[in-house]
């Protein structure tokens, strides 16, 4: 009976992230449109888009290999697993022992690898340039991400997300300049990974600036739906990581009653909504960067994360 309840709670988490992902994307698009004094599409528009794509014919290029056909499902699966493992409304879920920060980085790396392969598979120029740019961003963002993982792991003494969230939500962490720097670096990495302005613009198909869109340009129908859904899930995943690592208060403890879980879910949704409002505000206040400026942008994230680790060594010793 207890096992069934545990499974159920884990299933709620899995379904929750995938169910709200398009709505979250809709909210960011709506806010962004309002900030630009446009009316914007309805908040629920991404659901209709996905529905439409699911029922359209998938057009394949003549020279597309099996990689091209498998990649969308692989990307969606890897992203979904990662998103389902990050503690969102409760800690200590059934599979939380496997929710390791490094494992999540690796899952996202797998998804990115599949996407870059798929981008190059058909052999068009756009796919190639998109894949090469994506790999450049990855090679800059991942070291920064790993340093952030080290920072959090040094403070908490573990890389397991559930334990970290419990510690930060309840335990005495104190005033830590390292965590502030870590948050700063994490925001930069999240912007780069989610292809948002100033690194990439998800709403444009201008060949000079495309990164993510260039790779998926050839996709259509259900394949495109999978990729779009994975992109929305990735946004939820990064928001959840920000909430779980840096603003965990309100998360439900394991073994709490149903009302606590309901409270946990509503607190989580409110936090997600706050981030979904803040993201377009940040996006509209900066300009898109030139590709050759990316190393400086992501380099500053790397420096901030490295400083965070150093500062921890100063205060703690080796």
């Amino acid at each position, binding site marked *: 009976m207890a096992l069934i309840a545990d499974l159920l709670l884990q299933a709620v988490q899995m379904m929750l992230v995938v169910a709200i992902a398009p709505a979250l994307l809709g909210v960011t698009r709506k806010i962004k449109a309002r900030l630009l004094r446009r009316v914007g599409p309805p908040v629920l528009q991404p659901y209709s888009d996905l529905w439409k794509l699911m029922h359209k014919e998938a057009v394949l290029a003549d020279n597309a290999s099996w990689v091209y056909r498998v990649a969308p499902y692989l990307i969606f699966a890897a992203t979904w697993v990662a998103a389902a493992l990050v503690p969102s409304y409760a800690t200590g879920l059934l599979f939380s022992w496997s929710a390791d920060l490094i494992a999540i980085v690796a899952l996202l790396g797998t998804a990115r690898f599949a996407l870059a392969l798929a981008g190059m598979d058909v052999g068009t120029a756009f796919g190639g340039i998109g894949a090469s740019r994506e790999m450049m961003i990855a090679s800059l963002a991942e070291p920064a991400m790993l340093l952030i993982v080290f920072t959090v792991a040094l403070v908490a003494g573990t890389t397991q997300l559930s334990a970290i969230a419990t510690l930060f939500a309840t335990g005495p962490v*104190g*005033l*830590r*300049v*390292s965590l502030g*720097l870590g948050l700063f670096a994490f925001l930069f990495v999240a912007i780069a990974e989610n292809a948002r302005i100033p690194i990439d613009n998800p709403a444009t198909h201008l060949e000079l600036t495309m990164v993510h869109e260039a790779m998926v340009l050839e996709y259509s129908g259900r394949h495109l739906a999978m990729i779009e859904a994975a992109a929305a899930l990735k946004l939820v995943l990064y928001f959840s990581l920000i909430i779980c690592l840096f603003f965990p208060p309100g998360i439900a403890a394991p073994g709490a009653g149903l009302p606590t879980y309901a409270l946990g879910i509503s607190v989580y949704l409110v936090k997600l909504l706050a981030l979904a409002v803040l993201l377009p505000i940040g996006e509209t206040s900066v300009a898109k960067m030139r590709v050759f400026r990316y*190393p*400086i942008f992501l*380099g*500053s994230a790397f*420096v*901030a994360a*490295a*400083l965070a680790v*150093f*500062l921890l*060594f*100063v*205060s703690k*010793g*080796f």
Partner: protein
Amino acid sequence: MPSLMFDIAHLLAGSMLVLSFLLLYQDRIAAVINVFALQAIALSLSVAWQALVQDAPALFVTSALALIVKGFVVPTALRHIIRRLEIDREIEQIIGSGPTILTGLGLVALSILLMQPVGEVNVYAREDLAFALAVILLGLLMMITRRNAVTQVVGFMSLENGLILAATGAKGMPLVVEVSVAFSILIAFIVFGVFVFRMRERFDTVDVSALDRFRGERTD
């Protein structure tokens, strides 16, 4: 609650270090001066916190001096200089910003490792000295990597911020020394200012590489 006191000291000194890095990052002279003013304010807060922790009222005077002189007077004067000379544009660096920042990270790691043995005696002192040494080295790095005389002055002043941080971390620095250090910095600043103006008059530039010819290093 001693741990909170430690955390706040850590926060303030750490933010000085972060601002040192921001100084290395800036491309424009006006932005460099703004960051420098911020660093001076962080320094004065840090010194004031040390005054509270160590129960040494004399340090409040140091803090006020840092705030007024380096937080407001020096930045205002520097802004005045760049307006007069009309040099508010991109800074020429000798080496690019990437290698500079990586060198900076290396210097921070070096100063932390150097100050590690102090930790057995006093954790406060180790923290303070490690941060101060890092700020000093980053100030030196800034003076080395910049060609523009005004940004070199900012690097020198930032180096001196590190010195004050080190001095306040160690107990028992007499106020007379503080005041005389502050005045000597002010004098140095005035000398620098005169130097910059004279240089501008003579060479029509504040790029210090123009001076190389007169040292016989370059024959063109």
